[in-house]
C-alpha cells in the first residue's frame, strides 16, 4: 500500500478538555480548573524574585509564631472569609443545579428570573454559611438561614428583582422574637437584613 503523501491530522482532544474542563459533566471540573490556575498564579507570585517579600519565611518549623503586622493579619482574615464565601457560594450553586435537575426529571421547571435574582443576591454580599435552598410550587427559589435560637432570614425570590421576606430576630433585652415580613427589592432586602441585625446569620 502506497504511503500517504500527507500526514494524517493529529487526533487531539479539544483544547478545553486538554485544559481539564469537561463541559459534558457538571461544572465542578471548571471550578477545579480555576482553583488550579489560581494555585499556579500564587506559586508564580511567591517565587517571583522581582516582587519584594513582606515577611521573612523560616526554613524550619518553629515552635513560636513570628509577629505578623496587624494589617497583614487583617488581610489574612479577609482572605479566609473570602475562601469560606467561595465554598458556601459553590455549595449554594450546586444545590440550585440539583433542584433544577430534580424538577426537570419530574416535568417541572425552576423560574429563570427567580434563579437570576437569587444568584445576584448571593453574588452581592459575603456569606460564609450556605443557605437552605428549596424549590416552591410556583417555581420560585427560597433561601433560608436560621440559627438554633430560632432566628431566621427567609427569602423567596419572585423574579423581577422582587423578594418576599420573613425575618425573625430575637430581642435579647426584651426577651421576645421580633418578626417582620413583606416584599422588597433586591437592594432593599439588604437594608432590611441589616436593620434587624441579622447579617450574622449568614456569616456565623
Amino acid at each position, binding site marked *: 500500500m502506497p504511503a500517504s503523501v500527507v500526514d494524517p491530522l493529529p487526533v487531539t482532544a479539544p483544547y478545553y478538555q486538554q485544559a481539564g474542563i469537561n463541559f459534558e459533566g457538571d461544572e465542578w471540573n471548571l471550578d477545579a480548573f480555576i482553583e488550579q*490556575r489560581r494555585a499556579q498564579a500564587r506559586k508564580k507570585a*511567591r517565587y517571583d524574585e522581582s516582587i519584594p517579600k513582606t515577611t521573612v519565611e523560616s526554613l524550619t518549623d518553629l515552635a513560636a509564631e513570628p509577629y505578623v503586622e496587624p494589617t497583614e493579619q487583617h*488581610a489574612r482574615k479577609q482572605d479566609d472569609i473570602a475562601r469560606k464565601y467561595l465554598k458556601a457560594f459553590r455549595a449554594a450553586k450546586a444545590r440550585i443545579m440539583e433542584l433544577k435537575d430534580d424538577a426537570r426529571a419530574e416535568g417541572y421547571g425552576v423560574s429563570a428570573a427567580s434563579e437570576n435574582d437569587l444568584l445576584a443576591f448571593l453574588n452581592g454580599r459575603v456569606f460564609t454559611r450556605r443557605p437552605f435552598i428549596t424549590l416552591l410550587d410556583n417555581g420560585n427559589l427560597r433561601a433560608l438561614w436560621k440559627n438554633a435560637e430560632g432566628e431566621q432570614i427567609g427569602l423567596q425570590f419572585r423574579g423581577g428583582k422582587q423578594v418576599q421576606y420573613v425575618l425573625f430576630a430575637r430581642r435579647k433585652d426584651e426577651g421576645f422574637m421580633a418578626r417582620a415580613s413583606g416584599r422588597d427589592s433586591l437592594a432593599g432586602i439588604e437594608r432590611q437584613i441589616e436593620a434587624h441585625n441579622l447579617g450574622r446569620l449568614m456569616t456565623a
Partner: protein
Amino acid sequence: MRIKYKHPPINELVMGVYFKEPIIKFRSEHVGIYWAIIKDEFPKSVQNIMIGNVDIQVPSEIFPMPRFWFMTEDEVYLIQIQRNAFIFNWRRRDEEYPHYEPLKKRFDKHFSQFENFCKEEFGLARIDVERCELSYINIISDEEYFRSFDEVKNVIPSFVPLSFNDKTKNLSHFNISYVYPCEQDVALTVNLQSRRHKKTDKDALYFELKSSGSLSQPTKSEADSWFDRAHVVIGGAFNGLTSHEVQRQHWQPRKN
C-alpha cells in the same frame, strides 16, 4: 507641639484605609472604569500582588484581582487600590515635601472620589473603614552626619547593635522592627533597615515610622481624628528618636 522641618529626610508618606469587608462586587473589569475617572491626573498604571500576599477572591473570577497602582506622570503621587483597601502615597522626586496637611487633603479628595465611584457602580451606601495606617519613610544616605552604617548612632542616639566582640564595630546589615502600643487604637511600628541607595549605591538608612490601628466606629470623622492623632504620635517619635543636633543643624526645625 508639632515641629515642622525645612529639610526633613522623608522619602515617602503613605496613608491607607482598610475596609471592614472586601467589596466583592468590585472586579478587575471595574478598575478600568475607575481609572477613566482619574486618568487625567494619574496616567500611569502598574499591577502588584495584594498586600499580605492574599487573594480575596470572589465567585466566578478566573484570576485573582491584583493591587492596582495609578501614578501621576512624575510618579510623585500614587493611588493604590485593592478589593479591601485604598492607599495614597507621596514619594520624593524633585519637589520638596509638602507636609502632612496638604497631603491629607489630597487623600480625602481621592478617597471621596473612590467612594462615590463605589456608590454609583455597586450601590454601596458607604465604605466602612476598619483599619487605618499612616507611614513616614525616611531615607538617610551620604550626609555629613551619616556616611555608613557605623554612624547610625549619629542619627538615632539610642541605637545600639547587639555586640559579641570587636567585630560588631563593622556591622554590615540589620533589619529591626519595634512595636509600641501608644494609644488604645494607635500602635507605632519603627522599622530600621540597612539598605543601598539606588542611585549612588551608598549605605542608606531606612527609618520608617508607621502608625496603625482599628477604628471604634467606621465613620469618616473617626478616621480623620485617627489620622491626626497618628500624625502626632509619629511626630513625637521622630523628634524623640532622632538626634537633636542633626535636627537643629541639618533638618532645621521651624516651630508652628
